[in-house]
């Protein structure tokens, strides 16, 4: 990534953080600008997790209503604004998935690395190129099963039970793979 791209990104981050602060103080204008700047990204997150567009739209609506009410909880010292917003969207989407009947959730087995090629989608919102490279490097260090399960859980919002059914392994085994994978990731990222 070029230096100017990085400068653009940090400017973008600063702008979003600033808008969140204004939203926290009740500015509807800032809220509309925040929506314009971030909604397509958050919609991408919702679409990735939800089985259909109508559900994804409902989730996105809930997400922004939630952001209006809790913008004041954003702490720029502890999180990047885009990550904070995207995680709100992920959490809402996962809660919604959990409230749906199991049969209506998507079920393709993603043991192949379906979305594994990060170069396929531009990293416009990358937190910082080295954080991203670091996570990918650490993910690469996991054995294939752990990496695939963690990616599938993250991108499909699958539960332990769904993951176990998809890979045809006992629940306890799948839990153990993921938990060891998480511990290994944490250790790798902290070195």
């Amino acid at each position, binding site marked *: 990534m070029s230096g100017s791209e990085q400068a653009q990104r940090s400017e973008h981050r600063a702008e979003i953080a600033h808008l969140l602060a204004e939203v926290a103080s009740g500015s*509807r204008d800032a809220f*509309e600008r925040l*929506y314009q700047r971030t*909604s*397509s*990204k958050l*919609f*991408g*997150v919702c679409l990735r997790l939800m089985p259909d567009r109508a559900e994804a*739209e409902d989730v996105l*609506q*809930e997400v922004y*209503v939630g952001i209006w009410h809790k913008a004041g909880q954003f702490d720029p010292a*502890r*999180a*990047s604004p*885009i*990550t*904070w917003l*995207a*995680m709100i969207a*992920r*959490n809402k989407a*996962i*809660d919604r998935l*959990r*409230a749906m009947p199991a049969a209506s959730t998507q079920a393709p087995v993603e043991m192949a690395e379906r*979305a594994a090629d*990060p170069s396929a*989608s531009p990293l*416009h*919102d*990358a*937190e910082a190129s080295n*954080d*991203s490279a670091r*996570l990918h490097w650490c993910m690469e260090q996991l054995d294939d099963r752990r990496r695939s399960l*963690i*990616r599938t*859980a*993250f991108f499909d*919002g*699958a*539960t*332990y*039970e769904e993951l176990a059914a998809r890979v045809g392994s*006992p*629940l*306890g*085994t*799948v*839990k*153990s793979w*993921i*938990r*060891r994978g*998480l*511990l290994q*990731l*944490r250790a790798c990222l902290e070195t």
Partner: protein
Amino acid sequence: MNSHAPDFDHDPGQEPPDADVLAGEYVLGVHDAAQRRRLQARIDAEPEFSQRVQAWEMRFAALIDEIAPSPVPPQLWPRVRTQLGWSPVEGARGGIWQSVSFWRGATALAVAAAVAAIFIGRLPRAPEPAPPPPRVVVQPPPVAPVETEIAKPVTTLAHDDGSPGWLASLDAANGRVTMVPVPARADAQGRVPELWLIPEGGAPRSLGLVSIDKAHSVTVPQALRAALKAGSTLAITLEPPGGAPKGIPTGPIIAKGSLQTI
């Protein structure tokens, strides 16, 4: 399972994970609904646990970057505003909202609705002038003579006591319904009105949320347009914020009316 056990002092799949692993699992999203609710309560109650969750969110942030943005349908923003209890559109800004031909069109519509209300003779007070319908963004609205607007079917959606709740003005050709509410108080329980189209002998199909204090238009999905005819019913129910969760009405009907051709 046991075949793996000898390699480790303990098996993390078999016993309760420690707080940090739980936080990681929560961010990954592998828990069921009940466990997520327990952990969400813990996030609210325990700052330390909440920090663990945030740390995992930052660790996984780079995966979010792999998800491509996607264009958001234009009606989403008015829906967000409506759910927040604001008017569906912000009328005070530039662009299309200040275009003369736009206002002429919108005013013609409002006049048509008001005239229809007088014609029906049950409306205690005239509705406010219609703000711009949220879906009309690109095309300038047709500057139709008022007579043409009146010719469209207008249906009163009445409360149980017969008093009008909404006027629905139908534009069947373009698959659009303009809803003009008789201003009312918001539901004390925070529920929101949702509009349903019920074909004769058929099941209710949602047309989305409607405002209680501002006129706006609703676009009818292509598949339902055939039902915009005499004999079908328009009804409004009270639903949780965001609308009926599974596309099936869950709350009481607060107003309804059957479609008639004038």
